[in-house]
């Protein structure tokens, strides 16, 4: 055993299968690109109302929040990364279902009661609720919501992209104009997930970052969450 591992616990958990890690990173990049190019596209008509009369909701959008340089450039990024985002989402959901891995992350009605105690614990320093599953109810809610928001973004995006050919889908979202509003709200909600996600990773340490890269997670003594560790004896 390498010396550097002397002080480390000896059990590692294979937390994230390949498809979770792969789609995590392709989606992270896609969300970043789609949000910034989306804002550049929005700048061409910064309104949720009619063209006549036009009421802009913002006077300008800072350079740093835009990608593509101009409308045509931004559309190129948007129309390319929508496929990468959609492909990643499809791979993620399909692999979750086939592998059965979804059971650990899918938010189901019985998780509802556990959300508030976790919120209290994270944000109001309440006691940490006992936990028997890899992901707590708040995590499940966040991960499941993120996937649903991604689906809503893809569907409303499709409606704006093809309002004539996909008019039936457009009707589901109340038409072309409200699809634009829903698209924007879903983007904000998905982006709101990001800082919370990053803060949690920061709080819970380096090992989370390692495990979303390698799949393997080293158990940390002070780790406040989730995985029950098996000792070597128990494994053998």
């Amino acid at each position, binding site marked *: 055993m390498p010396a550097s591992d002397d002080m480390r616990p000896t059990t590692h958990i294979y937390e994230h299968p390949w498809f979770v890690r792969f789609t995590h990173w392709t989606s992270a*990049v896609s969300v970043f690109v789609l949000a910034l190019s989306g804002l550049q*596209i929005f700048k061409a*008509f910064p309104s949720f109302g009619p063209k006549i009369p036009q009421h802009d909701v913002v006077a300008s959008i800072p350079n740093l929040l835009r990608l593509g340089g101009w409308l045509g450039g931004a559309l190129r990024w948007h*129309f*390319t990364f929508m*496929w*990468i985002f959609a492909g990643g989402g499809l791979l993620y959901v399909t692999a979750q279902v086939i592998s059965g891995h979804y059971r650990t992350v899918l938010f189901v009605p019985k998780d509802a009661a556990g959300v508030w105690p976790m919120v209290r614990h994270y944000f109001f320093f309440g006691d940490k609720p006992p936990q028997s599953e890899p992901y707590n109810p708040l995590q499940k809610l966040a991960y499941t919501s993120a996937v649903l928001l991604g689906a809503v973004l893809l569907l409303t995006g499709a409606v704006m992209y093809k309002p*004539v*050919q996909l008019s039936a889908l457009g009707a589901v979202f109340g038409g072309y104009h409200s699809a634009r509003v829903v698209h924007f709200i879903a983007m904000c909600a998905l982006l709101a997930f990001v800082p919370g996600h990053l803060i949690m990773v920061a709080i819970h340490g380096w090992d989370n970052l390692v495990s979303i890269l390698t799949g393997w997670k080293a158990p940390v003594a002070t780790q406040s969450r989730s995985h029950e560790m098996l000792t070597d004896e128990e494994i*053998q």
Partner: protein
Amino acid sequence: MHEGINAGPQDIKSEMSDSGRRSTRRELLKLSPALLLGAFAIPSWSDRLLDAGVRLSDRASGALFRRGHLAETFADADVVPFDLFPYNFYDVADPEVDLDSWSLEVTGAVARPGAYTLDQIRALPRMRQNTRHICVEGWDVVGRFGGARLSDFLEHIGADPAARFVLVTCADGYYESLDWGTARHPQSLLCYEMYDRPLDRGHGAPLRLQMPTTLGYKQAKYLMTLEVSHVLPAQRSYWADQGYSWYAGV
């Protein structure tokens, strides 16, 4: 309390052994396809990749197109007043077309090429439709348009049914091309009227394209020539050549 672990397909690895390290490295390598996204950070590569992305989107858009599927039409009461219908142009609002001597020069894969006058085009069945004009910028306006079906005109000039594109050039130097499906869609018009009056100069007098199944920039104004073609020239479309989608179907 191990049910949480048993509930998921999580494996336990004891000892961070050498083989474990190799496995970690292997796991990390398995992520390397995601690094391909880094190619987008290299300008010369990203241009080509984004071209491919737009082409893929255009192909998917073409696959979604259904010739019999009509764009929504609106009641007269829902049409924006003529005075408020926006004038959109890329260079000048009025390229000063001589309306008296104007004719449409028809060339390419057609049985009857030549110059077609506005009266000849007006002699075709007149269509009138209240449809949504959708701009690539994200706004839309419902207007009233009148003219001849492009498909009727293509039949009139004896266009080769095996042709694939309709190419037009305009008095202001603009140029555009349509795929065959869009060109023959029943709502695609050679438009000479808006709001039941002859097109004014700012809206493209004397003749423009009007197609509720495409974005506004495909609907070229001040038409001067029309060519039926089997191939798409290198200069395809003013805006598509700047980076916009060529297909631009909605």
